[in-house]
């Protein structure tokens, strides 16, 4: 197990290095001069150059890469070119919107998907299965931004149960959660649909396995065999999807954060891209990639805990 973890850790670090090089290389390609953006339409050339120097834009590339990585390792993500505040502070502010939102949405999606998938699989072909599968087809097909628009229209504008957007901060947790509810639903439903489908098909795969027949021959009821044997084994692929979804939810909220004007990471990155605030883009993308890679690592470890075969394979 430790060897397995160590091996995965090594590949994690290699991935991170590769990713950071790719990110840095891509970001350097972006045309557009942050200095001229910051100073605006009527800025003069000498002013621009002064600012560029001040921002370190005139340094050679490798030096800039090393500075960037070195800074990140010590928690210094640099200073935002537009906000002029430390990027670390920006990320710290935003992550407290995006992270709870992602967790909230993931919880919702899991809470919906698990029962739905299990019911559908255990009543395969029945009316419950058919209607759940129909609902998931719709869930997958509806663009989440459109769904978000409809949610706002119904629950914020017409019924006025929720605010239309924005985030009041964590001073009042109940209020904060309330303001994250509509976005979480908009994010969660399509994910829940996908998850329910994966859960169902994974369960069906496992229900068709020989060891389920063995369990039944031992005297387990259908339900016992489902819960004690199939569900746990079915969780393995479901875990991957949950891992992927978490990363997606953390970053993929961009459009949803836009619709609900939430000050989250997604909107930060969107604004930073339009503002050519490359240092923020770099850092946030790196952070997201870091999260994805670490989540994958965690999923791998979780796999190995759930499935002893993987531990042995390494």
């Amino acid at each position: 197990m430790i060897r397995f973890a160590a091996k995965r850790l090594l590949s994690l670090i290699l991935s991170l290095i590769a990713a950071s090089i790719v990110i840095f290389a891509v970001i350097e390609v972006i045309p557009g001069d942050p200095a001229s953006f910051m100073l605006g339409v009527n800025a003069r050339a000498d002013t621009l150059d002064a600012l560029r120097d001040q921002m370190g834009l005139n340094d050679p590339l490798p030096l800039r890469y090393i500075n960037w990585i070195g800074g990140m390792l010590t928690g210094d993500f640099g200073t935002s070119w537009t906000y002029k505040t430390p990027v670390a502070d920006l990320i710290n502010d935003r992550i407290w919107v995006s992270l709870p939102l992602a967790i909230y949405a993931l919880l919702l999606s899991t809470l919906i998907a698990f029962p739905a998938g299990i019911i559908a699989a255990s009543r395969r072909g029945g009316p419950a299965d058919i209607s759940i599968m129909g609902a998931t087809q719709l869930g997958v097909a509806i663009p989440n931004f459109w769904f978000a628009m409809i949610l706002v229209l119904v629950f914020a504008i017409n019924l006025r149960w929720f605010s239309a957007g924005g985030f009041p901060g964590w001073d009042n947790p109940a209020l904060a959660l309330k303001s994250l509810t509509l976005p979480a639903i908009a994010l969660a439903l399509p994910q829940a649909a996908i998850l329910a489908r994966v859960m169902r098909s994974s369960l069906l795969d496992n229900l068709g396995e020989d060891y389920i027949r063995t369990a039944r021959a031992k005297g387990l009821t259908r339900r016992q065999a489902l819960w004690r044997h199939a569900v746990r084994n079915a969780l393995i692929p479901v875990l991957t999807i949950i891992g992927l979804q978490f990363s997606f939810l953390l970053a993929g909220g961009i459009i949803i954060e836009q619709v609900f004007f939430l000050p989250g990471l997604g909107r930060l990155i969107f604004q930073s891209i339009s503002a050519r605030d490359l240092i923020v883009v770099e850092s946030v993308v790196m952070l997201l990639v870091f999260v994805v890679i670490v989540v994958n690592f965690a999923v791998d470890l979780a796999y190995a805990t759930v499935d002893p075969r993987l531990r042995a394979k390494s």
Partner: protein
Amino acid sequence: QTDITVAIQLEPPNLDPTGGAAQAIDSVLYSNVFEGLTRFMADGSVVPGLAASWDISEDGLTYTFTLQSGVMFHDGTTMDAEDVKFSLDRARAEDSTNAQKGLFADIADVTVIDPATIAVTLAQPNGSFLFNMAWGDAVIVAPESIETIASNPIGTGAFTFTDWVQGDRLELTRNDAYWGDAPALESATFRFISDPTAAFAAVMAEDVDAFVGFPAPENLPQFEADPRFQVLVGNTEGETILSMNNQMPPFDNVLVRQAVSLAIDRQAIIDGAMFGYGTPIGTHFAPHNPDYVDLIENSSHNPDRARELLAEAGFADGFTTTLKLPPPSYARRGGEIIAAQLREVGITAEISNLEWAQWLEDVFKAKDFGMSIVSHTEPMDIGIYANPDYYFQYDNIVFQAVMEKLNTTTDPDMRSELMAAAQTLISEDYVNGYLFQLAVPTVAKAGLNGLWLDQPTAAVDLTGVSWSE
């Protein structure tokens, strides 16, 4: 109720009005947190600010300001002539990053006479010096707080800055030590909502008390019909133009520019892009300005004539060019409409939508464009036509001479005449397609008083805002 939540579209990238160009900085901080020697009023007039009064020397070169007494910065330090000198010198310094350095270009010297008096000497007479000093870029800052001004603005205004949650909101509280009349509001929150749908939802759900510069004109009739809300549609200094690259063929040919101007139907653009909000213009000048000359007739819609002109210019079969559009909806929607109208006369305009950063890079700096649409929101900015390096690259010695003259003229009648001449020149040269004066719709809850109707400068001045009982 003594608090207010005001939404605006754009978030300031930082909070230093003397170091950044973004209008949003002024929207939030102008007059609320920072003040200058003079200031704009809601009607665009320039009145005393931190300077209680001033004397102008005979030759028009020396301005001696007497400062308000008892003015303190929010950090408790006093505001005196040294601070004014610091601010002006900093703005005009060699390495200054002030976005409007030109405002200070004529200043030759700043001398502190005593803590309450300061003299500013100009290199040449400048008719708009007091006007210039009212700009947000010319506010008075203190050397003690200048290091952190971008994130912690310390000014002299009626509100102090308390908190900024980047990407979401900025909070102000009343400054109890304010030197002037105390504002009615105790606290104010600015929220930044750029997405039109979100803006509509936020107002409808009453998440915000007012939205200044509401981005979706199509929703205004609904608010007007709703007794919960009031809608104020004011003027801005924003001349929205279809800019053309005057150095790039075929736009270097005045016939082509005229053809383009005649091919476009302003009213359709105002109706289609702005849902009827906006005043048509025929030159680069704000219609509400007393010196405005109505020159719309020069470029009234006439596609047949436009085709003739094109043929005359040697483009009987039309031509293909680019139309690069920045993000605001007037540009994006207007661009689609203009492209369709130009197609009618045989011109193919290939649209590309750009983010502001890209627009600045491609269009403004590199001048790599055929046409673009943008609103020029700086007050009284016809002077840009005198700069041949300005992005649309209009180079006319006659016009430049007129502007030169205007800058050194202080006699009001003479100035009016010169300004009329300037307006006519650029109108008849069809430098750009002049579309409309941008309207700023403000949607507010009924019962809210004192918001500015017009936008002589980008500012959401809350000092006079109050709730009726």
